[in-house]
Structure formats: structure tokens, C-alpha cells
């Protein structure tokens, strides 16, 4: 007799909670800490109910100090715990940058493996939810540049649970970025049981043969919409790849798709300069350059701070821009 896997339709933020609950239940050493994560359940309710279930020794309201949160999490992690630290918004991680850059990510090497830092930092990020200044920053590339840090971004509930569990189980520090625009915009089926999705593996959102479209986070659903429109207007089909892990990139999936299509569009809402688009182009250069039939196109935010909300929609890559880039590459 087989027992049917129980599944629930969850929003992405519920799946994030579900992943933490699963790991708090399974592993005594897992802790959740951050500003307002306890009684309040987090400003996005990502830790809702965990304080009630696990108590204040495991779901911990900290003082308002990001460097303090990350710095002490390093200590906790080195000394036997698996902290999951929440940054209230990615735009407020900057005070903790020093701890990440100088300690969390190089403790393993500095101690030749004697001390390791198995911690996860979770942070909501991205534009499009009319948040006040600084709350909408999309600065993932700042972190892919830090040696020793994995950077993971889910775009739906199923991936969020599996990727977060894998991040918690990872023996090294992981930055887990949660696109705010995806928190409640859709539901996907999520198994009740524990499962994980390997870090460093991209996923095909849909398959096609003429263009490879790569993106992540909140741009995934927007991209799919634009691509579907484009495919209807042209006799063409696209691979849409959700990269899911930005460091390390899934070079095999990137190469495989580029070899098939020969045409590439990269889409991200972060500024272009120094952005992850450059790393992707470098992977293509190394793995599949001779298969290219057209210059690689990119659609990104501007090299400007994310504007306040009256103008943020203009900042985000629009359907028109995505379709225009697809046209350019196809007609080359």
C-alpha cells in the first residue's frame, strides 16, 4: 500500500514558513532569529506561528541591529546551531555587510575547516510592492561577488520550500532572497513532507527551441507572460529558465539551452552594471560561445537607485522591453 503524498496549495510566503517549521521540528539545532520574527511573526508573516509552536528560545526577537544579528549568528553557527537569520528587508542588510564579507564567508578557509558557518540569511527584496525608499533594492550581485556565499532566489512556493530546506542543510552560509512581489501573488502545490531542491540547479519553466530566456525571482512570472505573448505573435518558441541559484550558476543548464537555441535574452530587475547578467554571459562565453547566432540581449533595471514608488513600475523590466529584446535577437 502506498500512502499518497499530502499536498497543499500555498503562497510563497507560506511555503517559506513551512520550510522553517519542517526544519525546526526535525533539527533541534535550527534557530530562527531577527527583528520582529517572534511574537509578531515577521512583518511579512514569514515566521507566523513559529514563536507559538517553538517558543522564544528557538524563535528569537533580537535587538534592532543587523550586524549584531549576522555577527552573533556566525558564533551560533560555529558553535553547533543552524541559525536562520531574517533581515527585515534586503535594503537593511548593509550594516551587516562587514560581518558577511569579513567573517561569515571566510571562516571555513581561515580556520582550514576547523570552524564552519552553516547559516542562512533570509531577506525579502525587490521592487513593485509600493514600499518606501530603500525597501525595494535588488542588489543580489553585491552578494554573488562575495567569495564563500551561495545566493539562492525562489520564484514560487514549491521551489521556496525545497530550496530553503536545502539552504538550511547546506554546511556553508547561504543568502536566501525572497522576492516580495511573489510572496502572495500565486499559489502552488507544496507537499507537506520534507523535500529539498539541490542548490546550484536551474529549472526550465517552459521549453522551446528558438531563444533561451534566463531570469529569476519576481521576473519569472512577468517573463513567462511576455514570452507567451511573443510566441503567439511569432512562429517561435522559447526556453524560459529560472536560474534559482545565482551563485554558483548552473552552467550545464545554461550551456545546454544555449547550444540548442543559439539566442539569449537575460532579464533581471537589478541594475545592469556589475549585475549577474555579466556572470551569465561569462558562462556562455566559456561553454557555448560558438553556438550563438545573435548578440546576447539583456533587459534590466537602470543604473540608478530603485525609484520611489511613483516611478518604480517604469524601472521594472516591462513586457514591451522583454518582447523588444526577443524581437531583436530573433531578427538578427
Amino acid at each position, binding site marked *: 500500500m502506498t500512502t499518497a503524498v499530502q499536498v497543499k496549495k500555498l503562497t510563497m510566503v507560506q511555503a517559506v514558513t513551512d520550510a522553517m517549521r519542517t526544519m525546526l521540528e526535525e533539527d533541534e539545532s535550527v534557530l530562527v532569529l531577527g527583528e520582529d520574527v517572534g511574537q509578531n511573526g515577521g512583518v511579512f508573516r514569514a515566521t507566523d506561528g513559529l514563536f507559538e509552536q517553538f517558543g522564544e528560545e528557538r524563535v528569537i*526577537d533580537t535587538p534592532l541591529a543587523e550586524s549584531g544579528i549576522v555577527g552573533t549568528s556566525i558564533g551560533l553557527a560555529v558553535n553547533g546551531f543552524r541559525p536562520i537569520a531574517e533581515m527585515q528587508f534586503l535594503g537593511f542588510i548593509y550594516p551587516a555587510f562587514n560581518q558577511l564579507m569579513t567573517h561569515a564567508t571566510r571562516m571555513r578557509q581561515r580556520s582550514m575547516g576547523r570552524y564552519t558557518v552553516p547559516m542562512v540569511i533570509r531577506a525579502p527584496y525587490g521592487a513593485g510592492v509600493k514600499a518606501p525608499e530603500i525597501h525595494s533594492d535588488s542588489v543580489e550581485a553585491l552578494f554573488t561577488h562575495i567569495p564563500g556565499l551561495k545566493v539562492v532566489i525562489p520564484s514560487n512556493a514549491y521551489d521556496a520550500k525545497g530550496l530553503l530546506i536545502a539552504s538550511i542543510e547546506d554546511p556553508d552560509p547561504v543568502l536566501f532572497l525572497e522576492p516580495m512581489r511573489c510572496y502572495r501573488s500565486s499559489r502552488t502545490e507544496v507537499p507537506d513532507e520534507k523535500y529539498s531542491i539541490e542548490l546550484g540547479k536551474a529549472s526550465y519553466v517552459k521549453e522551446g527551441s528558438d531563444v533561451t530566456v534566463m531570469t529569476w525571482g519576481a521576473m519569472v512570472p512577468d517573463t513567462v507572460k511576455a514570452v507567451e505573448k511573443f510566441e503567439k505573435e511569432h512562429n517561435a518558441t522559447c526556453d524560459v529558465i529560472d536560474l534559482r541559484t545565482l551563485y554558483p550558476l548552473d552552467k550545464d543548464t545554461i550551456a545546454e539551452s544555449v547550444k540548442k537555441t543559439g539566442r539569449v535574452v537575460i532579464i533581471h530587475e537589478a541594475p545592469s552594471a556589475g549585475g549577474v547578467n555579466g556572470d551569465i554571459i561569462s558562462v556562455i562565453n566559456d561553454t557555448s560561445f560558438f553556438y550563438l547566432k545573435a548578440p546576447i540581449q539583456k533587459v534590466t533595471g537602470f543604473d540608478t537607485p530603485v525609484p520611489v514608488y511613483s516611478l518604480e513600475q517604469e524601472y521594472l523590466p516591462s513586457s514591451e522591453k522583454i518582447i523588444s529584446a526577443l524581437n531583436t535577437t530573433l531578427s538578427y
Partner: protein
Amino acid sequence: MLERFPVTQYINEDGELIKQEVQEELSLDLVKMFYEKMLRARMMDKKCVNLQRQGKIGTYVQYEGQEAAQVGSALAIEEGDWMFPSYRDHAATMTFGHSLRNLLLYWVGRIEGGIPPEGKNIFPPAVPIASQLLHATGVAWAEKKKNTDRVSLVYFGDGATSEGDFHEGLNFASVFKAPVVFLNQNNGYAISVPTEKQMNSKTIAQKGLGYDIPSIRIDGNDILAVFIETKKAVDRARRGEGPTLIEAVTWRYGAHTTADDPSKYRDQSESDRRRTTTDPLLRLEKYMKNENSWDEEWLASMEQKITNEINTAISEMKDYPKADIDQVFSHVFEKPTWTIEQQREHHMSIKRGKV
């Protein structure tokens, strides 16, 4: 520490003047001016919450209950001095001369909202917690180097005192004797976290001890205490005697922001109780009643005047020209880089449907 840092009061909850030595300076005009400025701040705050509920402005950060702490301190500095608000300190900025229209524009996501009128030294509100303390110190330090007698007044909450920038700000100000007044509004909570969980220290004022900064604790709902004690600190700073830390003990009645639900973490009956006990406006009302100078007609005419002012600001906000994407590209550098120019051109051509 509680004995070492008692809460200084000038007018108590029953509206009685308990520091007789200031009786002479306390004219009825001054009291009425205090009341009017606080009423203006309160009416504006309530209006903003309503506008948010009607979907006419975005998420808003309210300060109701903290009027005395903000208005009283703002009245203690002068034109030419500097003010460094956080996101909650509109009562302070509007008292110091920020326009109501721009205040509203800030909450509809407009850059203009953070810009003070010409000649008013008000920084755009700091969104990252505690970061503004260092700016205030730097600006004050510059004034000192330039041999002026201008000072900085900087606002921050209880939660902010946990951040490194708070400690660095106090330390720099102390080392360089910068003319800065650190005005803490201890409103009991940092979003959901009550002060007892934020810190183990009993007071915020005592945190100044480590930096040898004169520090006091005052009743932040007593506008006279706030005004007089801030003025003393401002005068000290002007005389070149360095920084002061003031902990104004107060209370915010409502949620952290209009996006927050306080029933998750606190019992709102305490707020209801405080409206009838420690409220800063009620206190002055009681004082004026004790002095037989409370005047309903005066109140009504003031309310009318303020309502008109707020309504004018709302129509100005509504009639304000639409946000222009050029603001985004034009103000990143003095001269836009080629990447920004290219992005601007591309964006405009896509908008015109030319690509």
C-alpha cells in the same frame, strides 16, 4: 539607573506647573502656541491615516501621541540650524518649516516629498535605522570647524539605540565635541519589540554615560519639559560645549505603520488609557483650564484654520504634476554616465513604441 536618570517634568498629568521657577517665562501666548503646533501636527497625522485608509496615499508612518516630543524640540532650534528626522518625525519637520504638501508627496512615493523649502536645513527622512545620527554629527562637526554657532538636532527611536551607528554617532560627537542634540523618542516599541526586549538597560539616557555625554530623561509628553530641556542642550551646543543626549519618554498610540497590526504583539487598551492620562494635548488643556484660560472659541477657530491649511495641502498634492521618469536618470550623478544615457534613450524609445 532609574534614580540617576529621573524623568524630568514641568507640567504634570493634572496640568499643574511643578517647576515654579519657569512661571515667569511661561506666558499664555507661549502655551497657546505650543497647543496650536501640536494640534496642527495631530490633525495632519489623523488626516494622513484617513487618506491611507481611502487609498489616496501609500503606507504611512504615524506619530500620534508623540507630538510634544517632536514639536517641543523642533521649536527649540532656529532657522539655520539643522534637523535630521527619521521616517516618523513629520510633526518635527512640519513645525520646523517643511511644507505639508511635500509631506503628503513623500507618502505618495514622490522624491519631492523629502525636499525641504529653500533655506530650511532639513535632511530627507532617514529610512535605515540610526544612520542619520552620524550625518547629524558630521554636519555639526562641520559647523564647528567653520566657527559658526549652528547646531544639529537629530531624531531616532528606542530601537535605533541598538544599532552600531547610534554608538558611533555618540562617540564621534563626544570625541569631536560636535554641537549636536541627540533626541531620542522612547515610544516603548520598535515595531513589535518592547523596550525591555530591545535592551537590558533601564534607560536610554544612561547610554550617554559611556561616551561622557551629558544625558537626561524627560517626560516626552510634557511639551514644556521637552522645549526647555532641548533649548538648554541647544544652548550648550552653541556655546561649544558639545553634544547632549535626551531621552524623551513617550508613547505612540497606534500601529508602527498603517501596514502593521499591533494586536499581534500588544494590548491596545494601554493606548486607550493613555489618551485620558498622559496625552500631550490633554495635558496643556488641563493646564489652561487650571489657569482659567481655556477657550472653546479659540480652539474652534484654530481647528478651522488648520483644516483649511491641510485641505489646501491635499489639493496641492493632488494637482501636483505627475512624476517624471527624468528625475530617475537626471539625479544619479551630476552628469549621467553613458550607461544611464543609453538606458534613458532605450526606455524612452520603448515608451514611444519605437522599438
